[in-house]
């Protein structure tokens, strides 16, 4: 088993792809936390904790759930909205949940500001000078998600969660696979269940861990 761990950064000028460091994706029914395979239940609990600890917990829905291109996508979008509303209900004063849509991947021109923006393929993906300290990707095409997750890990201390509809993402600190409406709703239930039990971290700047 790989000794490498997928941790909040800033990790490196150009961090490696976690898959190249031996991190493997979970099998159906599993998830991973920091690159270690865990049960889905453990991942729900950890993801909910991370959301409730964060000063600015943020959901980044991508085009696969933002556009009603099939019935499932529309239902997932509703579930994402429910998760966001649940977060707003469950956080404490001083915490600011956000929902920032990324409807497509058009590069932003004429230039981007690397201090503010993460990836030219996600013009709306911003971590605001590292003020977003926990984020979840959902409905982002896998390749685009992996690029961004890796760049975030390389340059920021943001805790990343992937709710992936396919095989999951090693480059996130925590990843689900085979995302469905039920899984999004279950994560919302865990957030509700842990309300008031998690001490929020009310400073956004972290020194970050590294391998």
């Amino acid at each position, binding site marked *: 088993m790989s000794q490498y761990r997928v941790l909040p950064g800033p990790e490196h000028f*150009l961090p*490696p*792809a*976690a*898959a*190249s460091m031996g991190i*493997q*994706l979970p099998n159906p029914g599993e998830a991973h936390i920091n690159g270690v395979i865990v049960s889905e239940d453990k991942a729900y609990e950890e993801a909910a904790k991370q959301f409730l600890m964060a000063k600015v917990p943020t959901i980044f829905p991508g*085009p696969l759930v933002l556009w009603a*291109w*099939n019935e499932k996508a529309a239902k997932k979008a509703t579930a994402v909205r429910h998760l966001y509303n649940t977060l707003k209900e469950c956080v404490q004063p001083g915490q600011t949940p956000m929902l920032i849509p990324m409807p*497509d*991947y*058009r*590069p932003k021109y004429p*230039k*981007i500001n*690397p201090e503010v*923006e*993460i*990836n*030219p*393929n996600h013009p709306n993906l911003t971590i605001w000078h590292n003020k977003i300290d926990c984020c979840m990707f959902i409905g982002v*095409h*896998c*390749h*685009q998600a*992996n*690029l961004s997750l*890796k*760049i975030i890990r*390389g340059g920021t201390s943001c805790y990343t969660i992937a709710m992936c509809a*396919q*095989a*999951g993402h*090693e*480059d996130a600190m925590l990843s689900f696979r085979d995302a469905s409406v039920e899984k999004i709703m279950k994560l919302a239930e865990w957030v509700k269940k842990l309300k008031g039990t998690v001490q929020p971290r009310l400073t956004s700047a972290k020194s970050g861990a590294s391998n």
Partner: protein
Amino acid sequence: MADIHSVIGTKNKKGQTYTDTWKMMNEAPRTPSFYTGSEVIKEAVRRASCDVMIAYPITPQSEAAALIGELFAEGYIGDYFRGESEFAVMSQCAGAAFGGARVFTTTAGPGTMRAMENFPMWSGARLPIQMIVTCRGINSPLSIQPDTLEIAYLLNTGMLVWHAETAQDFFDWILKGYMVSEEPDVHLPLALCCDGFFVTHTKDVVNLTPADMCLPPYDPYRSPVPCMDMECPPVRMMRDPFVMKSNYISYATHASWQQEVWAAVERSRKHSIHWLNGLIDTENTDADIMIVASGTAVSQGREAIRLLEDEGVRCGLVKVKTLRPWPEEEIREATKNAKHIFVPEFNVTGWLAKEIKATIPNHERVHAGPHVCGGMTMPPEIIVNEIKTTLGLKKSFVMAGRGS
């Protein structure tokens, strides 16, 4: 949007039943058939639910390309046409795959080299195109004979690269190859290579799956990048690339893009092991002497082992099935007991031996050879002689033209 699982058990327009691929490959009855490798390619494609095949003539793949044209005439393939050159063919394959089609093509030798610019583009665009490479000489003076040098050029393109030993490998791996390369966490092109003529133009008994069963269709909606959209990457960036901008994040994105392609090659490891029953096959791994080979050099190595056994010399074998993903751990484990490792190859540079030397500890154990190239055959006797010479034993065979 078609759900793949919902079409299992239904029929296509040719009356073939879309079948769970694992059942089709592992549980369905097989019929022994006496076919050339080219005919086997046709029979695999008949069962592969391909949407598009694009052809261009170059020996020794021309026959397979023509036979697939017959499949089109019979209605088994959605579209089939001849490109203007190999470069055009591979570009047209990209267009079809961007549009969400399951794409198949074949090439060889100088054709592979001419089209080379397209292969890293296919990988970077995450297009799961399957390309058969029937290897032949690439150098001047012209040779159309077997030579595997072109594989060396494919190894760093980001494609999956598999090397078939036999026509049976070819039949099974064409079908299984789509299952690996179309996984959303992989979604990369596959170069399925064989040694031209030795595999394509010789007849062998191949066990075929039923012709009335076929693969489930490709589902482009599971792709890790969007289907063709001129405003979104990767298409947008091909016409308006990162090189046009100069800032850290643009370069970091491009670097991460490349890393992600190679991460996908790594992810293919798990799926390749599942479908191919391991990335390597082994025999006698407790022996002091090992032969490590890929393609038809495996067959010659196997015969050399038999000849050596007759003389009381015990020798083991590693058949390398996938070159990308590279079976690093597997080769290290399989050769851990070996004092001498021989790598017979059908090319002049010995690229496989170099890969193995970079993989194992104490790489002075690796003897790069014997080599033949330019269309020469590799009699098992020259492998035997190479081994016996290294061991300080008397050669068993007198080989004309080899200074014996």
